């Protein structure tokens, strides 16, 4: 069973959307496998000033995207890169064993977006 926190983030995902002309864009997953995430970031003074994402995936994938966006917002790029899948899962009150792999995706997509920004700056 999903935790109440998961269900809340799934029902009311925070920061969902796109950023026009983002400073960084990170995309992971593959629709053919049932999950895909795109993270959009704005960077200001080496900090994440805005985060948005779009997610195609299961309940866990959507909740993970949402929690990662919340956890990263306002953080420095280096801090944000440290957000582990474990931390995301914990912040969600845990995830079912077979869904742990989804918790990977959120952090991965965010890191990719930051790397995208770094590669261009």
């Amino acid at each position, binding site marked *: 069973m999903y935790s109440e926190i998961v*269900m809340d983030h799934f029902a009311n995902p925070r920061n969902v959307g796109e950023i026009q002309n983002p400073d960084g864009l990170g995309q992971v997953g593959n*629709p*053919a496998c*049932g999950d895909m995430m795109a993270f959009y970031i704005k960077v200001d003074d080496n900090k994440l000033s805005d985060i948005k994402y*779009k*997610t195609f995936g299961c309940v866990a*994938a959507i909740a993970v995207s949402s929690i990662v966006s919340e956890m990263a917002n306002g953080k420095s790029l280096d801090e944000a890169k440290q957000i582990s899948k474990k931390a995301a899962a914990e912040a969600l009150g845990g995830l079912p064993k077979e869904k742990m792999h989804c918790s990977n995706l959120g952090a991965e997509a965010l890191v990719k977006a930051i790397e995208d920004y770094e590669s261009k700056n």
Partner: protein
Amino acid sequence: MNKIFLDHASATPVKKDVLDEMLPFFSRDFENPSTVYDRGMEIKDRIEQERARVANLVNAKEGEIIFTSSGAEANNLAVKGAALARPKKGKHIIVSAIEHHSVLNSARFLERQGYETSFLNVDKYGLVDLNRLEDLIRPETVLVSVMHANNEIGTIEPIREISEITKQKDVLLHTDAVASLGNIEVDVENLGVDLLTISSPSIGGPKGVGALYFKNNMRLMPLIHGGIQEKGRRGGTENVPGIVGLGKAAEIAKKELFQKEKNLTQLRDRLINGVLDNIDKVRLTGHPELRLPGHASFCVEAIEGEALIFMLSASGIYTNTGSACASKALKTSPVLIAVGTPEDVAQGSVVFTFDTSNTQQEIDYVVETLPIVSARLREMSPIWNAA
């Protein structure tokens, strides 16, 4: 908020009349039917009456029904039991590509015991290829297993035509009627099958019981070896309350079939038309006409099934994605792949299965709600803009 239950293929509440008949057999008439004294023998007699009720539902003879613990066990007993009892005939079996796991994995087990399996392909509607079947049958083929109707896409297979081929080629034919029974006519004589799988929970009976029709006392290697129960064909103390419940459910299913078929077909068509008219980029899966009356299944593009199911259940609509079993296997539905659905589209599978307790109002609410929920998920989907 009212709950609208549209996942009857995975489970159905046990009917009150069914439970009432079962209740005395837990604590009052609790004796073991294998015992010699009068009270045990009365219970044994009751089991035989239930066997007759179940036989009657599929137009079989009483002696042609073995009770099992589930549809899955009946499928295992049919496939393994028929094959392992005939090593001299050969070690080749044929199963359709869209069978339930319990058939597919039984075939895989036989492969480990030196058997060979051929998979019979299906077309984009899920109908098996009859010409191909003729080609696949060899002198050493023991068994063909093709389900009567598919639980995931609702397609009804041409079992009668298949049995004409298997009879002519002298090969046994098994059909899994778990999805069809209680929804359309299931008559072993008309179908011409040798083995047919029955599940109790899918016809309003209790969980923990199922049955296998096996023609004319044909030889079967038991799956559960034991004592003299079920004439030596299945060991273990009989699930007496369960068997009584299945018997009663079978009786009710028989009585209600005609009206149910009519009602559910109306609901189904209302739902299918409503969904196709109101949502963009949604496809009906399975056959448009040759499908179960209470079965409407779709793929909604650019969204994922589990998320859809959860959003629907938050709106009080309980339904399923893929098969009840596949849903947690985290794999794209093999059935949808077999009918040629692109993998990304197959992720958005949603399956509605009805019962007579469902109403037109409920269907209308679904037709209203599904577009809203789909739009919400698409709004956050990175592949929807692309579509």
